[in-house]
């Protein structure tokens, strides 16, 4: 079943097509042009209750073209990166640029900012895994979870493996590619008591398959996470400190990043407009971006403008030290790009780290949140109100599971009230952080 995927050949092919598209745009009268193309291939296996549920082979490609004619811009894209399709896409982009309005800020990033060094960031680790081997891993994962006493049902276990190439080129003569891989193994289980059912999950996700957690570890952890939710009560409404589990604390970093993103700032759609240099977090807290980290989940030596990526410090000793900008949003704000077209890459926190048990002790009486639900975050005002589940903490110790409550506050206050960061760092995503202890939030429950 393993599909052949020659990443090097794919990259060469995509590079030649991107170059051809750029040339075609020039011939058709575009003053400038940029083209992104990608090919991804993967396999996904799902098992449930000891049986194979689905086997899926995926192969996705795409090409996106933006042309600049004078101060006008047009974009077109297709899921087909074949030659004929690319020609149609370029023509359509130029056609659209006849109608769009003039934008004095619309142009490529400056030529001198283009990335010139492309070190091997070690983010491409193909996994030649036969279907049967993939099924065995997923079954081992689910079985380990289902063997734990009290697990009544399963939502299944899944293994997915994939690799791909993306290529970006523009009419400055910039043309570069990046290969990458991602593999993950996950399990979701269900337990039941007289009160009803609960489910929870765990997963591992890595660029290098050798670094994945063992199927048994993931399955057992999913079972433990599910069982500990049984017998949940509802907490009383009140003001309390909240400890956010690491996988949720990374979401708080995400809300901060959305608010310092150039696009939100120039549209006045951020609660952090005009905040550069101002204190937001405690002075012991620093947030860095390491886009060229070896093996990092989001590593890349160029951003989606072709601009070289560099280490950024977004929060320096509690103060907002930099916005997160693309070439376009930087121009709108009369600033310089930070190499963040396409987003942030590999966020790392520099702060004194505390063991989770010590954070619980520091909290004394409060709430440990392990799940958040819904989209109750207002990026314009920073108002925050989300559904939650977790544990009641009294005398610095976890007492019992709680559910069906909300945690609310305002992100500006929440960031200022950050009391500590845990050493229980979650490294599965682009943001690496431990738990966050935040003082004085509103819990709404019974």
């Amino acid at each position, binding site marked *: 079943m393993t599909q052949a995927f020659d990443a090097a050949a794919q990259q060469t092919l995509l590079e030649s097509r991107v170059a051809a598209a750029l040339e075609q745009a020039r011939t058709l009268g575009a003053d400038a042009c940029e083209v992104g193309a990608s090919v991804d291939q993967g396999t996904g296996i799902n098992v449930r209750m000891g049986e194979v549920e689905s086997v899926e082979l995926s192969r996705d490609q795409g090409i996106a073209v933006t042309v600049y004619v004078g101060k006008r811009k047009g974009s077109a894209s297709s899921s087909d990166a074949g030659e004929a399709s690319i020609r149609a896409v370029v023509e359509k982009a130029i056609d659209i640029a006849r109608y769009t309005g003039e934008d004095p800020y619309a142009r490529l990033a400056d030529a001198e900012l283009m990335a010139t060094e492309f070190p091997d960031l070690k983010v491409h680790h193909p996994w030649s895994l036969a279907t049967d081997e993939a099924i065995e891993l997923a079954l081992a994962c689910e079985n380990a979870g289902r063997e734990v006493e009290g697990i009544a049902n399963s939502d299944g276990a899944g293994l997915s493996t994939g690799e791909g190439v993306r290529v970006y080129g523009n009419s400055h003569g910039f043309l570069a590619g990046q290969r990458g891989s991602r593999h993950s193994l996950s399990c979701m289980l269900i337990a039941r008591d007289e009160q009803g059912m609960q489910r929870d999950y765990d997963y591992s996700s890595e660029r290098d398959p050798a670094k994945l957690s063992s199927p048994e570890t993931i399955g057992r952890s999913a079972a433990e996470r599910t069982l500990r939710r049984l017998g949940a009560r509802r907490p009383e*409404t009140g003001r309390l400190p909240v400890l956010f589990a690491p996988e949720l604390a990374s979401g708080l970093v995400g809300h901060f990043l959305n608010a310092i993103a150039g696009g939100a700032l120039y549209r*006045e759609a951020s609660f952090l407009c005009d905040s550069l240099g101002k204190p937001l977090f405690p002075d012991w807290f620093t947030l860095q971006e390491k886009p060229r980290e070896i093996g990092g989940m989001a590593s890349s030596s160029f951003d989606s403008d072709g601009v070289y990526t560099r280490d950024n410090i977004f929060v320096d000793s509690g103060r907002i030290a930099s916005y997160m900008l693309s070439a376009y949003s930087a121009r709108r704000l009369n600033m310089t790009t930070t190499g963040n077209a396409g987003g942030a890459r590999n966020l790392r926190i520099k702060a004194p780290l505390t063991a989770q048990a010590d954070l619980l002790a520091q909290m004394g009486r409060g709430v440990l949140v392990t799940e958040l639900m819904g989209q109750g975050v207002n990026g314009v005002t920073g108002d925050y109100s989300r559904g939650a589940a977790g544990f009641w903490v009294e005398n610095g110790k976890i007492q019992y599971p709680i559910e069906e409550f909300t945690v609310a506050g305002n992100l500006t206050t929440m960031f200022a009230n950050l009391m500590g960061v845990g050493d229980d760092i979650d490294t599965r995503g682009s943001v690496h952080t431990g738990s966050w202890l935040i003082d004085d939030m509103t819990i709404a429950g019974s």
Partner: protein
Amino acid sequence: MTQSTKAPLDEAIAILLTPGGLDAAALDTGLDHAMGAGIDYADLYFQRSWHESWVLEDGEVKDASYNIDGGVGVRALVGEKTGFAYSNQITAGALADTGRTASGIARSGSRLASQPVQAGGAPLRYAGIDPLSGLSAEDKIALLKQADRIAREADPCVSQVTASLTGVHEVVLVRASDGTLAADIRPLVRFNVSVIAAKNGRRERGSAGGGGRYAMARLRDENVAERYAKEAVRQALVNLEALDAPAGQMPVVLGSGWPGILLHEAVGHGLEGDFNRKQSSAFAGRMGQRVASPGVTVVDDATLADRRGSMTIDDEGTPGAYTPLIEDGILVGYMQDKLNARLMNMAPTGNARRESFAHMPMPRMTNTYMLAGQDDPEDIIKSVKRGLYAVSFGGGQVDITSGKFVFSASEAYMIEDGRITAPVKGATLIGNGPEAMSRVSMIGHDMALDTGIGVCGKEGQGVPVGVGQPTLKLDELTVGGTQS
């Protein structure tokens, strides 16, 4: 519109098959590849879509984009197992490759023949048109500029206006081994306005939009630019005056229309066939039991003319249907695709949906709404001593296993002594689906559908949906504000 789907079928064959050198006979050859040894059902799903988007910002349409997507997805089933592969090429070679790959899910067994095409037809729920072609590029830009001008003129506090006009022209064709051959041409358009208003150092957003399965020209004819621009500004100005929301349990009155996402989250997902077959839904095994207050009747309805969630046929070729889910408080139906219906000995309900050819279908909602009751909306407000009145919402989410659901208000007011008083900031409401539905105590006679803005996400796949409800009173729900 009650014609057969003959015309869409001819058009779909011309658009999807002819360019790759295929004809109707090639469908049978394609199915043969997918009906490998041991396979008991297979289907081919061909799709092509054209997506257009125009965005206005700073008074100018500076950004516009066009996307062309398409390919074929091939599925082979054996028992509860699914093999799935897809290709963005619609050619004989791609059908052979994907068919063989998908049928690899079965390792042995006899080869079954697929059924010859059975004559079928479905009443059209919308016109099979290309919605993008009715308006010129200049007209589309003029519509967006009109929204910008009206929003800015509406109030001096308005500092930013973003407006967008999007449309999708989608053509699908399904051939399945059970004899299904069906096609659908699905238009979908949407107009949206979002504004930022600033006053006394505060900034708030307001947004409004809508659309459906019809031509872009209808958006202009219905004057949506003015309507949604004014509505977005109104909402932003209300929010500029909003106080912090209360925290805790209280009576909640939900407005008619879009607040129907309550039903989508609290009830709808839990009644999708897959979750009930797997017994992972809080509603599993409760068929025929009381799951909501008397008077509560909830349906999923793909047959509404021109609505965002409507479907002439679903993505397995089953005609879209009107499916009662809860009748007078009693659970009476699930939403099914073919796989889950067969495994549960039930009939498919036309709820199989997929984001694209590159995604597997599963049971999904279409337009989900609660039928009107008897109460006067004014009486419902008057009956509340102290509570929340929520009229607009952002997104929602549900844990179908525990039944816990949330949805976040984007416009809400306090009710004090039976009167609507101060606006309060958006807060998340949380409850338990079956419990919340049993706390519905008053149902308005003002049933309304939303304006056509919903996108539902499930297992990473997004599909357009509709919701609706009359004004509703829930005796108790937890409101997640900051004022405890």
